[in-house]
């Protein structure tokens, strides 16, 4: 059977949440296989992460190199291609790093690529049957993947529970195998998001607006509702892309992570990138004219309505209280 590897993202000596989620996913993808954690990096941090992973994974491969101090996808790809057998099954988180690395890695390893896996249906070692989503989560698909020649599989963050089984894995230093790590793309720096005038991360109640608002002129009704409720206004990505609200108000993996008590999702379909920014199990109210919108699967209370009509009426009633 092909060897199974999970790439461990880490920062400041701490493994990413995906580190143990990938172990759970690996056990469904390749039942019975030994799963090896691969940790790339440089310096003391990498040893801390390797030791932590050894208590969960049956083996840990360490690739320590100055060029890997920052996880530049091109450099990491070279290190993995040089170190792993071509028919390996490699698991990555489907986040901004995994999207950068996974597709190209699959080409260089001449193996299959599965993007954004959300569940595993069946696996016999040669053909893997998985579940994916299309159309921003509005339709599900069964997908088969020939993994007999290896595969790179990007696993959606947050859908597999972290594996809790204990192990006593050995850390194996594979640094000497990393080979040539020269790259045509060089990492320069991280520019932190601007703080902005509002801090939605502290708000207890958020009135959050999405595509359903349709036009910039309609944003006003959202501010009115928020004012009536004593809430802060937040939004989903398309509203920021359209520059109708500032970036500091965006909830999601590419925006802010919020933990309100009450979250009013107004005309928001509920993509996983958006929901990824919502923590702390808030009471979610969803209003959407599309009864199939994924937001209704995660909301506590739903209303099938056009927010352009519903919000002003709700605001008026609240103001009368």
């Amino acid at each position, binding site marked *: 059977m092909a060897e199974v590897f999970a790439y461990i993202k880490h920062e400041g000596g701490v493994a990413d949440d995906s580190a143990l989620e990938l172990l759970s996913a690996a056990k469904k993808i390749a039942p019975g296989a030994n799963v090896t954690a691969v940790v790339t990096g440089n310096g003391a941090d990498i040893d801390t992460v390797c030791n932590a992973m050894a208590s969960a994974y049956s083996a840990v491969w360490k690739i320590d190199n100055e060029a890997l101090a920052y996880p530049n996808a091109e450099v990491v790809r070279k290190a993995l291609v040089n170190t792993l057998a071509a028919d390996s099954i490699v698991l990555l988180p489907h986040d*901004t790093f995994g999207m950068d690395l996974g597709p190209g890695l699959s080409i260089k390893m001449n193996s299959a690529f599965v993007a954004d896996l959300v569940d595993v249906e069946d696996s016999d070692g040669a053909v893997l049957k998985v579940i994916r989503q299309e159309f921003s989560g509005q339709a599900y698909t069964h997908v088969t993947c020939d993994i007999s020649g290896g595969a790179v599989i990007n696993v959606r963050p947050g859908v597999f529970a972290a594996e809790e089984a204990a192990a006593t894995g050995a850390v194996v230093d594979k640094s000497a195998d990393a080979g040539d790590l020269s790259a045509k793309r060089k990492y320069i720096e991280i520019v932190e998001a601007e703080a902005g005038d509002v801090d939605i991360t502290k708000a207890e109640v958020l009135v959050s607006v999405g595509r359903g608002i349709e036009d910039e002129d309609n944003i006003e009704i959202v501010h009115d509702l928020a004012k009536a409720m004593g809430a802060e206004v937040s939004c989903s990505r398309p509203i920021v892309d359209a520059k109708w609200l500032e970036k500091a108000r965006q909830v999601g993996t590419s925006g802010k992570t919020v933990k309100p008590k009450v979250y009013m999702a107004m005309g928001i379909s509920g993509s996983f990138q958006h929901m990824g920014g919502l923590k702390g199990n808030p009471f979610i109210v969803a209003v959407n004219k*599309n009864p199939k919108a994924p937001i209704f699967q995660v909301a506590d209370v739903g209303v099938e309505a056009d927010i352009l009509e519903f919000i002003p009426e709700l605001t008026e009633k609240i103001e009368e209280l």
Partner: protein
Amino acid sequence: MEILVCVKRVPDTAENEIEINSDGNDIERDDLVYSVNEWDNYAVEEAIQIVDKVGGSVTVVTVGDDESEEVLRREMAMGAEKGILLSDDAFEGSDGKGIATALKAAVEKGSYDLIFTGAQADDGAAQVGGMLAAMLDYPYASLVNLIEPGDGKLKVGREIEGGNQEINEIELPCVLSIQTGINEPRYVGIRGIRKVASVEIPTLGASDLGLDAGSVGEGAAKVRRVDYFMPEMGEGAEMLEGSTEEIIDKLIELLKAKGGLK
């Protein structure tokens, strides 16, 4: 700067209810309006803005059927000079790698400094750009939301978690996948589309591209969609029913109980 932008014709599903067809092998597409993939539109706009600054030209390419031509024309109306349609029955059933294989062949027929894709399309895989780059042995950056052209290289910003931006320097030629919000795509009116209505768009098939039919299409695909389905959901949201007034009354009671009103 010669820039190639890879685009895709997709149904607009942002505000539409999606239904699975009775065979379960596709979504119901009859009532859906098709246009260019949203991310690709930002990519074309960015390419045009770069060419406006440093000179050169923009070419748009797609893998699709005859109907995909309208998407190429739409992007040419924005300012792309040329369009190329890659169309062949042999491409049917391609996985991401099959599409990237066809695009790679098209890239090699031209001479491009810079290749853009949208960061993702309707299948949400976000895979073709990275595959294409690896096949060409070009450097790649995904989720790009900033580009500053330099001498033989670019400064690019990638959107990463938390709204932060990862700045990289990348050598040309390269492939970039473009994130929404990088610019404000210009509006295309019917008049603009009419202007490019008669521009010839060459159609290239597998043999024109020098591709072995076995390297693309369903036969080459290691990854195959079996069906579409809607899963049995848990309870999901409690849907409030009744007149708008009744719904609002119920909602206000719930909000009071949960601390949503101050």
